[in-house]
């Protein structure tokens, strides 16, 4: 009997398999309104949990498909590209899909307790609705092969994350969300202006198609301006250093689950978009070499790495500290992708994956501490090293990884970034990279010192360790931070292959 059901299910799956690409986005997108209808908070939570896990399974299946049978191209509604919308999965996008869906799935078991603590109960189902919408948006950005469709998903994910942030109990969450809304909308507008200019010149919106047409037009000022608009727009979304001002408050005052999810995925997806723009969309042109885009990005990346880390030293709020650390770490990725060699691009892709893992783990640890001991400021961590040993141990691993200490993933990507700097023959860059790590040691150490070497304040009630539903996801991610460093080969091969494919694609485009 069971065997029959099993066979039917398998047959069904096999039929569905070619449609995994659209399902990747469609499932969370359709699930979101259903979540509104559910209303009951526990059921909404469970429903979201199932949806995210299915989404994650599909993402993994897509990665396996890409590894075994090459890039996937799916014409939505049967309209062949470049006329219709194309969904395109190559190694890079498959990797980003897995990390985004994976984080979303890992956060869900953690979310139940944390969300009930931090979001007003009647609005919890709305939280999960927005969570699903945001996930759908981010996956859509990653998977689509259409420049305008990308804008649509960008808006879906952004609008839903404004709501996610504003659901925080702290009233400052509202101003933080509003600020993000203004700047995020500006970013999206810049992006769509850029896309509009390209459409005006080429008459196409398909990214692959654009890539083949742009080399012939690269002397036109309009195309140059389009690149500028696109980069500034995406730069705003990924919080590239001087455009980062929306990020710290948004991270600090949002509900912890929203912070974990947005910090680990939203900026990473924007970095992915930047890689796509530079290496695929404009890959065939020699803009990279002639316009000074690379130098500008290298410079901004480096300034961000140092400046944001320095600001982080002076933060008292733990989440704000981690937020500035994120801005600094984004600098690593931008620097890596702008160095223009395989090692650098590999480092950037690796850091997308690794930073997602470690920041998610770190914010989860903070979430545990907040739930159990109402931790907001660094001083509130005092004595928790003894009272919440499991949570704090994970925090230490996360911080060591931010610093880039060996045996953590942070070290692996930093190692590749250093290689990239040497390949590029630039000394100063190598020094900036290590200097940024050292500043991370300073702000990270403040947290560790508070947790382990300061006694708990008199009169605080006994603090219990966080529940298992929070600790298991926390240590799942923390464990990955160490395991993927002990055997970096797996992620590294993927990232390097993806980087090479991008480079080769770009190089091939030069020859018309």
């Amino acid at each position: 009997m069971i065997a029959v059901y099993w066979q039917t299910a398998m047959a069904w799956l096999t039929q569905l398999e070619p449609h995994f690409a659209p399902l990747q986005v469609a499932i969370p997108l359709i699930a979101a309104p259903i979540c509104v209808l559910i209303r009951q908070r526990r059921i909404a939570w469970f429903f979201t949990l199932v949806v995210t896990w299915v989404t994650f399974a599909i993402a993994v299946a897509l990665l396996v498909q890409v590894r075994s049978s090459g890039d996937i191209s799916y014409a939505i509604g049967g309209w062949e590209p470049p006329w219709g919308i194309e969904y395109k999965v190559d190694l890079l996008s498959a990797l980003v899909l897995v990390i985004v869906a994976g984080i979303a799935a890992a956060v869900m078991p953690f979310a139940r307790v944390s969300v009930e603590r931090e979001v007003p109960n009647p609005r919890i189902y709305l939280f999960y609705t927005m969570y699903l919408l945001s996930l759908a948006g981010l996956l859509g950005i990653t998977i689509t092969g259409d420049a305008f469709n990308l804008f649509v998903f960008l808006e879906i994910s952004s609008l839903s994350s404004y709501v996610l942030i504003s659901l925080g109990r702290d009233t400052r969450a509202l101003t933080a969300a509003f600020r993000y809304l203004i700047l995020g909308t500006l970013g999206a507008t810049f992006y769509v202006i850029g896309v509009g200019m390209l459409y005006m010149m080429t008459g196409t919106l398909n990214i692959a198609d654009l890539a083949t047409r742009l080399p012939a037009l690269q002397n036109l000022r309009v195309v140059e301006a389009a690149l500028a608009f696109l980069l500034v727009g995406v730069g705003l979304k990924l919080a590239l250093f001087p455009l980062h001002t929306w990020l710290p408050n948004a991270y600090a005052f949002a509900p912890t689950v929203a912070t974990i999810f947005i910090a680990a995925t939203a900026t990473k997806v924007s970095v992915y978009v930047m890689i796509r723009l530079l290496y695929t969309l404009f890959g065939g042109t020699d803009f990279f070499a002639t316009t000074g885009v690379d130098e500008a990005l290298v410079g901004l990346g480096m300034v961000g790495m140092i400046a944001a880390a320095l600001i982080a030293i002076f933060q008292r709020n733990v989440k704000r500290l981690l937020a500035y650390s994120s801005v600094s770490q984004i600098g690593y990725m931008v620097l890596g992708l702008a160095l223009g060699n395989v090692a650098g691009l590999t480092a950037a892709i690796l850091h997308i994956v690794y930073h997602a893992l470690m920041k998610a783990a770190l914010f989860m640890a903070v979430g545990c501490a907040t739930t159990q001991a109402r931790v907001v400021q660094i001083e509130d961590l005092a004595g928790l090293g003894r009272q919440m040993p499991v949570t704090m141990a994970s925090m230490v691993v996360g911080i060591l990884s931010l610093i880039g200490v060996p045996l953590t993933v942070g070290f692996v990507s930093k190692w590749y970034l250093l290689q990239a700097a040497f390949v590029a023959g630039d000394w100063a860059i190598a020094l900036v990279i290590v200097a940024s790590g050292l500043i991370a040691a300073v702000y990270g150490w403040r947290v560790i010192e508070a947790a382990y070497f300061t006694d708990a304040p008199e009169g605080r009630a006994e603090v219990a360790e966080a529940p298992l539903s929070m600790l298991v996801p926390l240590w799942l991610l923390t464990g990955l931070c160490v395991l993927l460093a002990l055997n970096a080969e797996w992620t590294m091969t993927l990232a390097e292959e993806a980087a090479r494919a991008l480079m080769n694609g770009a190089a091939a485009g030069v020859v018309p």
Partner: protein
Amino acid sequence: MIGFGASELTEALALLSAWQALPLTVLVPALGALLILLTGRWPNLRDSITIATSLTLLWLVLPILIDVAQGGRPGNRLVEIFPGLPLAFKAEPLGATFAAVASILWLATSFYGIGYMRGHHEENQTRFFACFAVAIAATMGIALSANMMTLFIFYEVLSVSTYPLVTHSGTDEAKRAGRVYLGILLGTSIGLQLVAIAWTWTVAGTLDFEAGGILAGHVSEVTVAVLLALYIFGIGKAAIMPFHRWLPSAMVAPTPVSALLHAVAVVKAGVFTVVKVVVYIFGLDLVASSTMGLALAYLAAASILIASLVAMTKDNLKARLAYSTVSQLSYITLGAMLATSAGVLGGGLHIVMHAFGKITLFFCAGAIMVAAHKTEISDMRGLGRRMPFTFVAFFVAAISIIGLPPMGGAWSKWLLALAAAEREHVLLLATYMISSLLNIAYLVPIAVRGFMPAAGEGMGEGWRIREAPMFCVVPLCLTALATLVLFFAADPLLAFLEPIAPPTPEAP
């Protein structure tokens, strides 16, 4: 000599093969640390585990020593971190020697530490012994690593794991000192050493320690100079000036920590890495021909003299010993920078000799603190009459540090001076000699005045012996005795070390 009866010994003690033992030397102390944490509630059981772990470690190091003495170079690779860059172990004479010294002295320190911590009523003893075991695991990893990446990883583990030991007392002063400690060690290693390692990997395509070095033929004169400076300053644990401040800071730690970690494991890990980099990454020829090598040799010489002079001004015994260590470490760095066979072998030998001498001195300082609660040298006059064993041991170890026969330190200083003479640098030779004189001036009076009557007492006062606990006194007598034994055992030890830098490489 070590080869004699090796097979019988192997059988009698049921020793493992060397390659099997290699990763276990790291794993066993690490597991020991875990057990110590778990048994923290029962102090006697916990401390027995410390002893048992250190005995097991000795049992593991023995087969490695035997194999290396017979010319073997056992290796074991665990996991590939990056393609071509594994986490791997490989024993060679220098590393095996360092591992042996650290594990032998860990046993001594375990006994001593138990006596000291209980005698001194220290808190958080469980954390203390657990971190200690992790530090030893890291030291083993450094000593027996097969490539620079593995070494670097354990180097960092050692820095981080010793931080809780330095800040053990938890006072604000300890925390400040801990920040200086970790700041300098992490700062130099990540800021300079890591850059050097990454650069080496980029130009040489490997980080394996290979006889003759891996850089030769891949780099220009200028690159060698920059890389050498990055390495030498980046290895902060070698405490070459101006990156020496962490060592005096670390003296806020309980004395067993100062004794084993800041006279043996941590600081020796530094100079060990220096020698290792010079011999197996650069190769002697490359360093010998580099002007930077010479410049760094002079810097090391300056370090030797300045640290000795500072030591003379210190009245706190541990602070004086710390500056003495800074000075003695630069002996080894200087030997390595001279890049001759005698310099490298002398440096290797000095790692051993200084370890036994300095740990004895620290043991004595701790014993005095436990028994008489004295930390300042000016208060120690006449104390030798109460603590004769401690003060005799102090005297013996001081003679070894100074480098006078019949103590082990004589040989290493002889070889180092020989190296300076070979390279015809009169100033460097003079540095070694002047520094020995300074050593006499700041070490011997402490022991001698201990036997003089304290102010206001007549010579006729009786000798009422009130020594520190046996757990403290016996280990320090044994290590003092060892400095004497090493004088006579120097020849086989030298023969053991010789393959790392054969005296006449041209001869067939």
